[in-house]
């Protein structure tokens, strides 16, 4: 009896270690919960790369992606081709947020590599803060009412698209307008 009891601290230690080890998986960047899910896009009027102004809250009128990118971000280059592909193949509007970037560089990048975006907002970081963005790339799924429904941190690739984004977009397209 006594011998078993002396194992109690060890057992508790193991229990705690397992519990804490779980937190490593919780802190993966793309698993960070976003408190903004279910919220409307912020009511901000912002300049675009083509030098006009647009209201962020009102710009989205059908299910769309909002993609945060920059020319200084290597992963954005990696996902760029894939964004071109899905925007064409699925007739999916993609709204760009050109995040903390040089507008001239951004324009020549789009001219050179192709432009998957409906429009691009020029963001000095303020929209980023509103959306809880902490780096690029990040991609949000927006429904037809302009409500944020999903957030993906990191590259959009075949796996992310077919596992997460595509099923959600299909489901949202079937939702009736309220």
């Amino acid at each position, binding site marked *: 009896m006594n011998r078993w*009891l*002396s194992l*109690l*601290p060890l057992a*508790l230690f193991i229990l*705690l270690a397992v519990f804490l080890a779980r937190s490593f998986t919780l*802190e993966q960047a793309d698993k*960070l*919960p*976003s*408190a*903004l899910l279910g919220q409307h896009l912020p009511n901000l009027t912002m300049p675009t790369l083509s030098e006009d102004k647009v209201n962020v809250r009102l710009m989205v009128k059908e299910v769309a992606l909002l993609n945060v990118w920059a020319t200084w971000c290597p992963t954005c280059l990696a996902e760029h081709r894939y964004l071109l592909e899905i925007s064409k193949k699925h007739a999916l509007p993609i709204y760009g947020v050109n995040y*903390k970037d040089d507008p001239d560089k951004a324009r020549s990048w789009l001219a050179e590599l192709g432009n998957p975006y409906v429009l691009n907002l020029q963001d000095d*970081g303020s929209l*980023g*803060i*509103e*959306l*809880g*963005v*902490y*780096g690029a790339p990040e991609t949000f799924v927006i429904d037809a009412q302009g409500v944020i429904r999903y957030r993906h941190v990191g590259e959009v690739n075949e796996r992310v698209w077919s596992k997460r984004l595509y099923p959600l977009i299909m489901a949202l397209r079937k939702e009736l307008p309220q």
Partner: protein
Amino acid sequence: MMIQCFILLFCLSLTELVWGLDRYEFDQPEDADRYHRLVEVLRCPKCLNVNLAGSDAPIANDLRKQVYLMIKEGRNDEQILAFMQLRYGDFILYQPRFRPDTWLLWFAPLLMLIPGFFLLGRKLIYSRRPK
């Protein structure tokens, strides 16, 4: 001795450099204190386990500026923390909120004391008994 002095001076000059990166001006000294306290308790979302004060990641710069602007606008600490939490989640707060799903976290240290006291008590009782 001379060399040690130089090294010390060099290191001290570096800290000056870091602190000087963004020194915001406040009208009230209390506001400056609030600013420094807030950037201590807010975690840099890009980095694992560094607060806003200790990070030079671009996002940490932006969020420090945001804290500064919100203090300037006259928002109180609770409003600023709530603003950050809404956008960046619980992750950004170093001190977790006291909620039903964090009770275990808060009381875990006390809970862990219980078996310790139990074992200690047993040991004391047994060691007093004559063999």
